């Protein structure tokens, strides 16, 4: 009778349970709660107090509006501050002398480089930095007009064990008459401290100087004062730089490996714990950790931050900085607590990388896996954008550093975060032109606005006005008849003085004649008279129809960041001459449209006159040639896209005519050779060939279709 015993026992238990229930307090309840998973405390929101309405204000209105005020005068306070807040507590207000940059805008911001002494060894990297500054538009050789000073002494490597370590910096800089305790000085540094703990000690007192340093620790970073820069190797290109390696936006965007870590593994020293832990998430399949133990020349000095997601195996991740990972179009997964990211002042890193906490390393795989396809796609493009805008060359790194400081000095004419973080990047957006986003051709879509409905025609006149049948007269009439034309500006570049007003035909739109001072580049000067976003640049002898103008303008409104024009040209690589070639022959593709008749955004006038170096503009003025090629270089460098050619009724004047009239400069072979040279000179300055080929032209929808002419809006274009 085993069963019976069991059941008696069970019955007893039940009785005990009941008894306990009635007298035993909360034992069962607790038990029950445990069994039914009613653990913890139950939702208990903040009470809705009955006397809520009678609670006192946190401060009286009076207290809020009437500030207690201080006895101290603000001027005295500011002076007192600069005495208190210095060295490690430096801020721009206290450690930077704004009066040195007194003059407004671009003109006020000048950088002086100390001459280097004969026996100074300057490393390759530092030489590149100095070259970049020297060639930038901010350089000055006169210390009196300088706002910022850069040392001639190489301070990049401050590791005492390094071969490039420069001793006695302290004594030397103190000897500089302009040192002024480091005020307004900018010090570049890549490596500091020495093995094994790599402190941030530079080995000399930087005083009130701004530090532009790679791998800055947040603890020592003086916010709003120092600049964190990316670490770069001595082989980093001076200019141009490679484009990112992202060439395709594949869907789904996953690659072979989900997560990859490449770097050194130390048994001791900084980051060794994390690195060892990294080894634990290595699974050999989609998460790999590649570590080496070899100590290279300057590899070991830095925190390897390349834990990168979605990295394909064939792309060699041959570097230790995040930037290379960025170039490789994989998304950096940053696990570096306390590291100030490069240019963190202006770049929104959380839109381009996946940040993790070193302490939560083991969560990284699940975090990365949880990232959606859309986000991977967006992150990859954004890392590419950042790479191309700020990291791909020493020039860009140095200029970004200078621009960040300049934005601080002239804070009311500076770029906002949106300008820094969207295409084409902060370096190509000059706040002196405007601080208003809608004034640039790049942000229309992002702001949800469309380009303006009107254009300004700028006619470049070189020959004197002698007869009423001159091409320019016809051109004026044709252009002024366009319903989109708001005004016409004639740029008078002739040797003769401009004719009186009455000589010009009457027109429905205002006409302005300005003096171009006989410079070819004057056609791209940012004339204040240009009020519309679109500019139609014209040569005096251009032959156009009103409907051609209208059609091209409508096309431009769809592509406001590009040049939209009529006659195309092309460039090509000549393997025999090992140089770039230029052709005006009829080809199946083109990379240039002539600005003798082209629409573009007026911002490019500003960029042409202020972003490009004086040397290139001088070249254009000297030869009276190539200004159109330079403009195409500029716009393609900004957009990474080709210009757009639109339909044109007749072939343009630059047709290679068989008999070749001597009077026209473009029939001259000399003229043509100059253009070949120009292409190479420009490519040299940009550091790469920005021009891009295109294979199509845009025609009206019914262009030369077999339908009634009456249906066609642009029938004039089809007349022979």
């Amino acid at each position: 009778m085993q069963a019976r015993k069991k059941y008696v026992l069970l019955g007893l238990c039940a009785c005990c349970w009941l008894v306990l229930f009635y007298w035993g307090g909360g034992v069962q309840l607790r038990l029950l709660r445990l069994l039914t998973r009613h653990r913890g405390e139950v939702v208990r929101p903040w009470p809705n107090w009955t006397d809520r309405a009678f609670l006192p204000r946190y401060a009286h209105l009076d207290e809020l509006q009437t500030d207690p005020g201080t006895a101290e005068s603000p001027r005295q306070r500011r002076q007192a501050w600069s005495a208190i807040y210095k060295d490690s507590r430096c801020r721009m207000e206290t450690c930077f002398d704004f009066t040195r940059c007194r003059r407004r805008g671009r003109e006020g911001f000048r950088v002086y480089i100390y001459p280097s002494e004969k026996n100074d060894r300057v490393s390759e990297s530092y030489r590149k930095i100095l070259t970049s500054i020297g060639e930038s538009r901010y350089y000055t050789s006169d210390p009196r007009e300088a706002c910022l000073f850069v040392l001639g002494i190489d301070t990049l490597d401050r590791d005492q064990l390094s071969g490039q370590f420069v001793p006695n910096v302290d004594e030397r800089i103190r000897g500089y008459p302009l040192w002024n305790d480091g005020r307004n000085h900018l010090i570049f540094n890549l490596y500091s401290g020495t093995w094994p703990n790599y402190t941030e000690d530079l080995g000399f007192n930087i005083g009130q100087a701004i530090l532009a340093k790679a791998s800055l620790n947040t603890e020592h970073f003086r916010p709003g004062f120092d600049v964190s820069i990316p670490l770069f190797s001595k082989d980093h290109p001076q200019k141009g730089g490679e484009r990112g390696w992202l060439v395709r936006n594949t869907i789904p965007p996953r690659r072979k490996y989900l997560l990859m870590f490449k770097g050194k593994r130390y048994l001791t020293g900084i980051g060794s714990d994390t690195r060892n832990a990294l080894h634990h998430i290595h699974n050999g399949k989609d998460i790999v950790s590649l570590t080496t133990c070899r100590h290279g020349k300057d590899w070991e000095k830095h925190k390897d931050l390349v834990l990168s997601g979605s990295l394909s195996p064939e792309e060699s991740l041959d570097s230790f900085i995040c930037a290379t990972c960025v170039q490789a179009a994989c998304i950096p997964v940053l696990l570096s607590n306390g590291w100030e990211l490069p240019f963190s002042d202006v770049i929104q890193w959380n839109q381009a990388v996946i940040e993790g906490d070193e302490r939560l390393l083991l969560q990284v795989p699940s975090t990365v896996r949880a990232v959606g396809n859309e986000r991977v796609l967006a992150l990859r493009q954004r890392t590419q954008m950042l790479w191309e805008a700020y990291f791909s060359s020493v020039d860009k790194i140095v200029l970004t550093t200078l621009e960040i400081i300049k934005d601080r000095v002239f804070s009311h004419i500076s770029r906002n975060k949106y300008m820094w973080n969207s295409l084409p990047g902060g370096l190509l957006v000059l706040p002196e032109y405007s601080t208003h986003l809608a004034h640039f051709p790049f942000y229309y879509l992002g702001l949800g606005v469309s380009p303006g409905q009107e254009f300004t025609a700028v006619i470049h006149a070189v020959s004197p006005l002698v007869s009423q049948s001159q091409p320019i007269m016809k051109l004026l009439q044709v252009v002024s008849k366009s319903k989109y034309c708001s005004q016409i500006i004639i740029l008078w570049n002739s040797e003769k003085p401009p004719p009186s007003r009455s000589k010009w035909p009457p027109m429905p739109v205002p006409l302005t004649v300005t003096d171009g001072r006989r410079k070819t580049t004057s056609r791209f000067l940012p004339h204040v008279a240009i009020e519309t976003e679109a500019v139609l640049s014209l040569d005096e002898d251009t032959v156009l129809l009103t409907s051609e103008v209208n059609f091209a303008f409508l096309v431009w409104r769809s592509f406001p960041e590009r040049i939209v024009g009529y006659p195309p040209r092309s460039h090509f690589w000549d393997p025999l001459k090992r140089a770039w070639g230029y052709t005006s022959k009829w080809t199946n593709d083109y990379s240039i449209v002539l600005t003798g008749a082209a629409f573009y955004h007026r911002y490019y006038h500003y960029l042409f006159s202020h972003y490009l170096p004086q040397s290139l503009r001088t070249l254009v003025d000297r030869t009276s040639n190539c200004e159109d090629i330079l403009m195409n270089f500029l716009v393609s460098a900004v957009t990474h896209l080709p210009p757009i050619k639109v339909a044109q009724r007749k072939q343009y004047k630059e047709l290679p005519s068989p008999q070749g009239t001597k009077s026209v400069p473009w029939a001259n072979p000399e003229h043509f050779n100059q253009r070949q040279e120009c292409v190479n000179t420009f490519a040299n300055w940009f550091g790469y060939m920005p021009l891009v080929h295109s294979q199509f032209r845009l025609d009206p929808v019914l262009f030369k279709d077999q339908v009634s002419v009456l249906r066609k809006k642009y029938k004039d274009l089809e007349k022979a």
Partner: protein
Amino acid sequence: ESQTCQKRRRMTSGNHCKSSWDASVSMYATGKYSSRGPALIPRMKTKHRIYYITLFSVVLLGLIATGMFQFWPHSIESAADWSLDKRSVHDAPLVRLPVSSPIPERGDLGCRMHTCFDVYRCGYNPKNRIKVYIYPLQKFVDELGVPISSTGLSREYNDLLSAISDSDFYTDDVTRACLFIPSIDVLNQNSLRIRETAQALAMLPRWDKGMNHLLFNMLPGGPPDYNTALDVPRDRALLAGGGFSTWTYRQGYDVSIPVYSPLSADVELPERQPGPRRYFILSSQTAIHREYRAELERLKEENGEALLLLDKCSNLSQGAAAARKRCYKGQVYDYPQILQESSFCVVLRGARLGQAALSDVLQAGCVPVILADSYILPFSEVLDWKRASVVIPEEKLSEMYTILKSIPHRQVEEMQRQARWFWEAYFSSMKAIGVTTLQIINDRIYPYAARTYEQWNNPPVVKWSSVNSPLFLPLIPPRAPGFTAVVLTYDRVESLFRVITEISKVPSLAKLLVVWNNQNKSPPEESLWPKIGVPLKVVRTKENKLSNRFFPYDEIETEAVLAIDDDIIMLTSDELQFGYEVWREFPDRLVGYPGRLHLWDHEMGKWKYESEWTNEVSMVLTGAAFYHKYFNYLYTYKMPGDIKNWVDAHMNCEDIAMNFLVANITGKAPIKVTPRKKFKCPECTAIDGLSLDQTHMVERSECINKFASVFGTMPLKVVEHRADPVLYKDDFPEKLKSFPNIGSL
């Protein structure tokens, strides 16, 4: 033991509480019964069986009865509690602080999230949301019974806490919380006894050196030197403070918050259209340092009426009335209404950096001109203040007028709109301030799920009209990978084979994918298919749906997809290749052959579909179009509303839906390539007859109207251009052209 239910009761209704209990009890019992019962009962004699079943029933009934018993009286009790819940602040339990109770250390300026914050408490969570616990209200008094704060819980702090407790961040479970908010009100340092407040903080049960604790403070510092951060020692606690300077603000750790202006709750200022205002610059603060006031007076002398310098009204006594009035030379103005009359409003620092006036100014849609050196602007970690304000160094006060005059009008208007938006979203109430603060901290802890710049900074009107193309990087993909042609077919095998043969002549074709949409019939045998030089795959679908054509099949390995109908045989190889070349230059657009247009029908007051020969194009038919594979993914998984089902139900308009989708996300028009053709194959007149049918056109018009209403806008863009080869129809030898065979029928 009844506590559980009581607590729950406050959240939910009483009945719910009981029923959940009953359910759990009976579940427990039945679980036991079923696990033991079947194994034992068959072996027992009937007599015993009855006995035991009775016993079990008794036990079961007993349990239910006890359950009822346990609850019945308590539910009466908790009903009494219910009224107790409508408690007064004064009922908060009293806590006496011993004089010797420990004082926390002063905050460490080196604190950062990775050094002073315990992330393990937040952990990994699929929602990426931190959990916030609020301590119950207690009233702290010192040994003599004097409270630690002169005001106790303020209305603003109470609003803040109840807003947080209503938000998604809130948890009542102290063990699961990642962030702790003390109920000790430290918004205004003036009303605090610093040492005692610090002791009270240290008394909190989970204080643990202030780890993961968040304090809200708006008025820091006290006379004479007014520190820019709360003076209460607080160990490692995070501080959400109004009026931080760059020296006290721990970047990435503290949160800079606005100084709340109670006026915004009292006064309603309707939003004003951005535009020029009566005054150019307005200064409305009452306690400006005389040095600065002199400077402002000088500016006014120079620039006259454009400036309005207001001050306190001397004839009004202190109090609420005085706070709502401002005077200039005896003339009285209403505050804050007067702020709406000016384009720019000066916000000067006082003893403190953070000024409540900033909130008033933003509310009025006036662009703040902030003169407070080293001030960390509210929420500056996420808000782009350059788009809503002008920050001028104090030194340059005298240049203010020229600086402001140099700002373009359109930008001033945008700033006015932006200022108002900042106020509405982040300044308007204690709730907005509290939730924004928590969101910022949340973004730091889960940076991979952080809100974007656009989400934080774009006002709704911009969010609505702007587009962020998913393929924004200007890339011209290489030619080499080619494209994958996707042919949707039902059973027109003969025509299909002709299409396949035609397409296979295109040099850049990488793969051909036939989507076999006929479930009743198998595709022809392999041997019957035309022999072509590229891989050919047949995908059989489960249902005859039009959306099958846009499924992101794994077989599509290229970025470019050519969608083509099984009756499009009139496109030449040159035309297709050229289409692919054009697509490479516009990888984010639809690049197709036949173009269509949508028109607004003024008579009917709705959209109309147009397939006539028009000068404009706003759609391209996907019967022959190139597009990025990403759009397949979007079409299948991200199509808004019920459009996908509508398309499948009507067996029509999938192409219009695709045009809407692409235009909506990129903001760009499609590209029509090559001249117009009569897209008609001789054999399939019946089908064409259908597509020319009037009813068909009506249905397509309906589609446009339906989609426009689902998208809430008309995303399609009208253009007047199409793409042709550079030398198309030019007087040039045909054999030298890359694409000679274009436009031939």
